[in-house]
């Protein structure tokens, strides 16, 4: 059994990425994720890896595009305003079917916003990672340990489906320390016969490209990608159900909000209210089925987010109007408190404790 150590979320992610076989990291400093770069800068030279501080988030993401094209496991990380800058490269990465991992330790927005924890980039991650018809895998860890697990899975699934995977965390998860165990796992990235790494006169030249000037060809390629998305929805959706079996009020929350919600659900149970929690672990694909299954059994859903309400739209779509879907959130870097969520649960239960 591997040793349990105390680690900051940002550092644990970096270590997990290295253990997942990432040897090429391209970063740019921004609060509250800079520790990822600092950790990589320290570790990579010692293990023959590459840490490069780029001239901008734009360049860092394009370096990832280049390294991914060459067939290696590669990663970049940033926080909200920096992710906006990376979106250009993310689009080309999606359009070129390249695997990589992108970390977003979210902070308050819009604009320069703030530096405290936020979940206001949900739409950006799940709805519009770029221009064009496109998705990327989006994982939402709720603890330092889960960040470690999901980073490994993100690399594996990115390779499997040849698409980018985002770890969507927040300032609290990045900055906090929790005990974490790194399981020794055999890393076997798949062969990448499509990579542009020099054909050595043994095969035809490979092209990494997102340009299809003929509309019928572009349509065909996008449709093929969407067939892949359907397969991913079937196979890779992840969700945690907590005390939902008999629940009258189900809170839907992810990441740090889910931890607050879980405490509130426990307190509600202690007060005699049948509360439960559905915690999406993948935000794209979104665990719509888990919500749909409960929609005709609950009094109400309560979506809790560190935003003005974004995931709540997915919850509404999944509930198909069979149950009311309410929202409670704080934004700008504020974190909902357990009591605030508890009071909302009580209200939705009909006011009875």
């Amino acid at each position, binding site marked *: 059994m591997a040793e*349990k*150590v*105390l680690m900051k979320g940002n550092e644990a992610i970096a270590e997990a990425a290295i253990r997942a076989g990432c040897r090429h990291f391209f970063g740019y400093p921004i*609060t*509250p994720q800079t520790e990822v770069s600092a950790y990589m800068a320290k570790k990579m030279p010692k293990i023959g890896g590459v840490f490069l501080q780029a001239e901008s988030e734009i360049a860092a993401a394009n370096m990832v595009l280049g390294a991914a094209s060459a067939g290696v496991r590669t990663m970049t990380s940033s926080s909200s305003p920096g992710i906006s800058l990376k979106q250009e490269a993310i689009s080309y990465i999606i359009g070129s079917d390249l695997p990589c991992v992108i970390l977003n330790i979210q902070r308050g927005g819009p604009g320069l916003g703030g*530096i*405290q924890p936020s979940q206001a980039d949900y739409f950006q991650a799940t709805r519009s990672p770029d221009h064009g018809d496109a998705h990327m895998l989006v994982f939402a860890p709720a603890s330092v340990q889960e960040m470690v697990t999901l980073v490994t899975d993100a690399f594996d699934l990115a390779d499997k489906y040849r698409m980018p995977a985002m770890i969507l965390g927040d*300032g*609290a998860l990045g*900055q*906090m*320390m*929790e*005990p974490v165990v790194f399981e020794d796992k055999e890393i076997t990235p798949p062969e990448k016969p499509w990579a542009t790494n020099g054909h050595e006169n043994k095969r035809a030249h490979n092209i990494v490209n997102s340009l299809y000037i003929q509309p019928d060809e572009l349509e065909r390629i996008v449709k093929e990608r969407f067939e892949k998305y359907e397969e991913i929805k079937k196979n890779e959706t992840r969700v945690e159900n907590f005390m939902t079996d008999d629940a009258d009020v189900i809170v839907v929350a992810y990441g*740090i909000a889910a*931890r*607050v*919600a*879980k*405490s*509130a659900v*426990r307190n509600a149970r202690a007060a005699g209210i049948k509360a439960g929690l559905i915690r999406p672990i993948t935000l794209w694909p979104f665990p719509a089925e888990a919500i749909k299954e409960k929609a005709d059994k609950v009094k109400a859903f309560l979506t809790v987010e560190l935003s003005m309400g974004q995931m709540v739209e997915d919850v509404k779509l999944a509930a198909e109007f069979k149950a009311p879907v309410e929202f409670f959130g704080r934004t700008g870097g504020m*974190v909902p*408190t*357990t009591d605030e969520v508890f009071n909302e649960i009580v209200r939705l239960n009909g006011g009875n404790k």
Partner: protein
Amino acid sequence: MNNTTHTFLLAGFGGQGILFLGKAIAVAGLLEDKELSWLPSYGPEMRGGTCNCSVTVSDEEIGSPQVLTPSCLVVMNQPSFDKFDKATVAGGYTFIDSSLVSSKSERTDISVFYIPATSLANENGLKGLANIVMLGKICKEYPFLPKETVLKALEKNNKKNLPEITERNNRAFDIGYNYAE
């Protein structure tokens, strides 16, 4: 307060070792195989402004890592006292560095301890270890974990394993532990 869950809110100036104090508590929890979380304030305020840190040590899975109503509050400057004095849960504990905080708590529903930690550290040639003096007093009055575990945690945090640092830490800890108002 759930007696298997200990929530700490530690507050002071940047540079007082507030985060380190939190880390010592967290590592002690780790040594006892507890659930735990350590959440610092971060950003510009770290550069010499106010600084605080939430630590939870528990037998149960930890929900929100943010501690708003601590079972144990430690304040090491006046602004932190003004801000957090009311935060401690009823029945909880508040520890105040009385060399830097002139106010007295008017709370009657909690246990309040005044320790001139900064002066004690300075007088004993332990400048910069007021945080450890505080830790000693906390362990005495609010024994969330065995004293031995906390001392071991301090030793573990001494990464280069310098005997001189361990000796100074232990001395600072004992000064706090044995301090009587």
